[in-house]
């Protein structure tokens, strides 16, 4: 998986660092002062992650929690995301990470105490919202998959303990990963939701490279549901194709057949979108991708996406399918729209 490990000197003796080193005994280690001294200093091509992926272990400095953009989560409540890692081991053709960082190398931040303090601090700023019965949301998985490397990071117990004492807050773990082992060791909490991104099975095969197939993701959701873990679904990104309505009907039917409707906390629906920088990278990295023949337009805000009438048509169609199959209006929200 990795070819080299870079470690901030001051973190060498940290237990999680030592446990990672033990897992990769043959890898060369390089001690550095700060992750920023090396990571992203030169433009490392995205696709070099396939054969030359380095791992960085460091301390997240600067902003640890950021306010999420509008329509990131269920409306009416404050949403934040926290930064526990950079980059992902998967390779989805549409992924914005290919245009976001200057390097595909994985960075794991291990100063979770600092992140935890910031989460508590952020909650304290929302007394008024909490008094009104609102929840404060914290999302993991913005710059990385929440579960894919959880066996290395051992961070889940920390966050479960934290959120056990923050009933006014909700933690969302966004993932495509089948790596549930560490999660299943823990006691479910009502305010920790694991949400899976799902797409039609052939779409996953074509564009979500190296990720678990649809059936596996559904099985994971079922496993979590049976053990009492709250679950949710992101139908994101929606990419139009021939017979699109049929494929999404089949997808939602599979979801309902496997999981029912009532115990799914929410379903978000989001249409594929790119910044122009990311789209340029998609063209470069995946020149044979069907995405390059899609009906996108460059928009006034620099984003590349379907024109608004289509986006709304696509979103409306999928929402109708979800409602027809038994989900309620309250369960569905449109993401980033």
């Amino acid at each position, binding site marked *: 998986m990795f070819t080299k490990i870079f470690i901030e000197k001051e973190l060498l003796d940290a237990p999680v660092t030592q446990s990672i080193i033990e897992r990769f005994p043959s890898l060369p280690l*390089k001690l550095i002062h700060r992750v920023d001294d090396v990571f992203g200093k*030169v433009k490392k091509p995205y696709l070099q992650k396939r*054969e030359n992926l380095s791992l960085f272990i460091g301390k997240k400095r600067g902003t640890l929690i950021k306010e999420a953009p509008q329509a990131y989560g269920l409306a009416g409540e404050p949403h934040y995301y926290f930064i526990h890692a950079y980059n992902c081991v998967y390779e989805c053709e549409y992924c914005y990470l290919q245009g976001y960082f200057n390097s595909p190398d994985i960075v794991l931040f291990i100063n979770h105490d600092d992140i935890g303090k910031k989460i508590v601090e952020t909650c304290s700023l929302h007394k008024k919202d909490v008094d009104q019965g609102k929840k404060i949301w914290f999302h993991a998985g913005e710059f990385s998959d929440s579960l894919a490397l959880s066996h290395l990071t051992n961070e889940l117990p920390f966050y479960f303990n934290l959120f056990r004492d923050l009933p006014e807050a909700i933690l969302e773990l966004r993932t495509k990963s089948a790596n549930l082992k560490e999660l299943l060791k823990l006691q479910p909490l009502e305010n920790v939701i694991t949400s899976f991104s799902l797409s039609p099975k052939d779409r996953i095969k074509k564009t979500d490279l190296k990720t678990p197939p649809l059936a596996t993701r559904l099985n994971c959701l079922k496993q979590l549901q049976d053990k009492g873990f709250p679950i949710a679904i992101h139908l994101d990104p929606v990419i*139009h194709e021939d017979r699109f309505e049929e494929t999404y009907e089949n997808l939602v039917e599979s979801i309902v057949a496997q999981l029912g409707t009532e115990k799914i906390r929410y379903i978000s629906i989001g249409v594929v979108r790119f910044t122009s920088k990311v789209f340029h990278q998609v063209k470069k990295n995946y020149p*044979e991708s069907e995405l*390059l*023949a899609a009906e996108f337009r460059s928009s006034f805000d620099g984003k590349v996406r379907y024109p608004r*009438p289509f986006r709304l048509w696509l979103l409306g169609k999928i929402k109708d399918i979800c409602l027809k199959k038994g989900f309620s209006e309250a369960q569905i929200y449109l993401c980033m729209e």
Partner: protein
Amino acid sequence: MASKKTIIAFAHRGEARAFLSEYSCKPTSFKENLFFKEDLYLLIAGEGIYRAINELSHTIGILQALYSDSPLEIFNFGICGALEKDILIGEVRKIRSIYSTDSVGEPQFKSFTHSSVKRDPQELATTSDIITSHKRILDSNDRETIRNFAPLVDREAWGFAYAADAAGESLKAFKLVSDYADAEVCQVVKEQAREWSESLLETYLSLAPSPEALEAPELPQGLSVLHITLSQKRRLINLLRALELKGIKSDEAFQLCGLQELLRQEKRSKEITKDLIQNLHALVYPLNAALEDRLQKQVAPLKKVGFQVKFDQDLEREILHLGATLSSVDQIQRIQAALGEFDFEQYVRLLRGQDVH
């Protein structure tokens, strides 16, 4: 198509020795450090990034001026130092990504990568990234810093890649490991120069013809009867390429577009080409075509009374631009009637994705 010109850039004459001999190259009349035989040009640039940039840029400029129709293929062959001891002295490595430091030893952001590196284990085992340093690496601190970015170091590759890139070309680089960047190596290099140059030549001779040597995409035969401008050709190629990505080959695309029916029409060739592009466009972008059709139908009565109609460029805003030149009372009355009958709510519904399909 005119024959391809190949430029092989070297820093030192010693690196080029075997090549000069193999091809019996002679100096050109216009540049004393440039040697040639037929379509092959050997450049001895000199040491350092700036010489590499200047000399290769100059060479490319001259050749592009002399042979504007000829595609270029650019190589760098030379020696380098290894920063990792598991790379052996004398090994020749294909270079994947080229990084650089600036004059004070800080890594430079810009890098160059050659995409032709195959991802099979055999090729990857002999492929490396390289970092070009502004100065000779003799100090262990410098070595440790640049080791973070690449296992090989040289003095020129990034400069050659920069010059090639500026000319719209890519660079293929191959480096022979001459030392471990930890001592004065000049004497060793001198002694080994002939042998190492021959290793580099062997590598060059073993290269398969590059895919870039194949002809640029041309239009299928079926379109040879049409009058097609350069920009239309580009559009057609892009549309056919997009259809290929969707699994529709050219023949099928032409059938679906009704090419034969178009050719039978008594229209000028230019207009048939225009129609063909329109039909192909609708095939590639059927949703856009359907929406465009619905919107045009919706505003047709306004156009009929003389309005110039423009939608919001990105269709993000629910607005409609109308322009008219008023020239008679009669016309004003017709415009008023048309505006009165225009169903703006239906127009907005279309922009909201309702009633589109």
